[in-house]
């Protein structure tokens, strides 16, 4: 018998999250009150302008009790940490479960690109990965989330009617039916269940 959705939610190794326009607000709502010993690494690609130093790490350090870092080349993602891809670099996960960065060409006009992170994470973690796609005015992330689903991972899309920009969630829904389509409050609950 194949495991139920909630069984799958408790067997995860990592969570990847993608977002663009409106993402910061959405993410902060979602991660408010996450316990500092949250049992999984949370890895985020947020579209940001390439040539400006991003304040996102500092902002989230203040907003949540997780340990917040910019993902560094060759670092190994750790539970309880929230990682952001650096502006201007694609973030990927290698088979030895360490991060790698690249300046490969932009994907969907974006670097970092959500697809690039999601594809590589799906490859590495397979059905032990959850992917969450939030608000955004760009279709980046839809194909990546589909890859996560194809590798047996858990897929979550923000309820488009709630999203500040619904192109990103709707692009995913056009491609396939994810496991969950939820408002932020629901995604928050789900995340808490993923915490082992």
């Amino acid at each position, binding site marked *: 018998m194949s495991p139920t959705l909630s069984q799958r939610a408790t067997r995860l190794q990592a969570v990847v999250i993608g977002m663009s326009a409106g993402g910061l607000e959405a993410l902060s709502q979602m991660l408010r009150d996450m316990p500092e010993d949250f049992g999984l690494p949370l890895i985020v690609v947020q579209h940001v302008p390439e040539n400006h130093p991003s304040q996102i790490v500092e902002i989230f350090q203040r907003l949540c009790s997780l340990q917040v870092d910019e993902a560094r*080349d060759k670092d190994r993602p750790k539970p309880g940490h929230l990682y952001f891809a650096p502006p201007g*670099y694609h973030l990927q996960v290698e*088979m030895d479960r360490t991060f790698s960065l*690249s300046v490969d*060409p932009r994907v969907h006009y974006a670097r970092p690109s959500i697809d690039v992170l999601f594809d590589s994470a799906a*490859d590495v973690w397979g059905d032990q990965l959850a992917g969450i796609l939030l608000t955004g005015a760009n279709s980046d992330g839809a194909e990546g989330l589909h890859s996560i689903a194809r590798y047996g991972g858990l897929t979550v899309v923000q309820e488009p009617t709630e999203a500040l920009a619904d192109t990103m969630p709707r692009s995913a829904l056009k491609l396939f039916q994810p496991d969950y389509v939820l408002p932020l409050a629901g995604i928050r609950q789900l995340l808490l269940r993923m915490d082992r």
Partner: protein
Amino acid sequence: MPERALEIELRLLIEAVYLRYSYDFRNYAMASLKRRVVQALRTIGCSSVSELQGKILHDPQAFMALLQYLTIPVSEMFRDPAYYLALRTQVVPLLRTYPSLKIWIAGCSTGEEVYSMAILLKEEGLLERSLIYATDINPQSLERARQGVYTLDSIRAYTESYQKAGGKRLFSDYYTAAYDAVLMDKSLREHVTFADHSLATDSVFAETQFISCRNVLIYFDRALQDRAIGLFHESLGHRGFLGLGSKESLDFTSFAEQFEPVSKRERVFRKL
């Protein structure tokens, strides 16, 4: 866990490339390489990596096409302007004390970093006494670097970066425009030697005072990063300078203790 077919195919492809053409990608970070090989399948017209392997073994032109994906021929002038500012304020004053300079730009790609450096050196009055070695493994990129022709579109973006990098003149002083392209001033190239050199398989060729190697090490695994930094350490003369990409560091290499930071933020180091 048994390996999946694609991983096996990739490993075999990389091995075939090494045995047939002596290009060594065996210690590269695989995630981005895999993505690029999968893209190459489409352009080269193969339906699987195994088929691509067969093709490149017998067809050097197909290999040259694949090499454009295995390497990453993307660059920008004055990428990270703050890096060039740090060089101007913290490295140039010390380079001035040398009667002649050898500078190595490793992984120079299509030349944008080389012209940026040449412009900086010229404005600081150091170009005349400098010899710049600009090296890469991709012969097509090196050829484009030698030609110094860039699109007008890209030049517009570089103009802003040039100014932020502390540029002292008009960026347009350094090129002539023709239609939708520009040709970089050839005086910038007079002190540059472009050469084929691999950080993975070749050894040190000169003693240098400053090495700039940006956004190359992120494509390597730790062992290969170590090898590359080892080459730089060997090539640099007493108290020589090393500049890396803005997300690269010496932290995971065995040379961390043998350099001191000059600008931590801009990843400029000095040999101890």
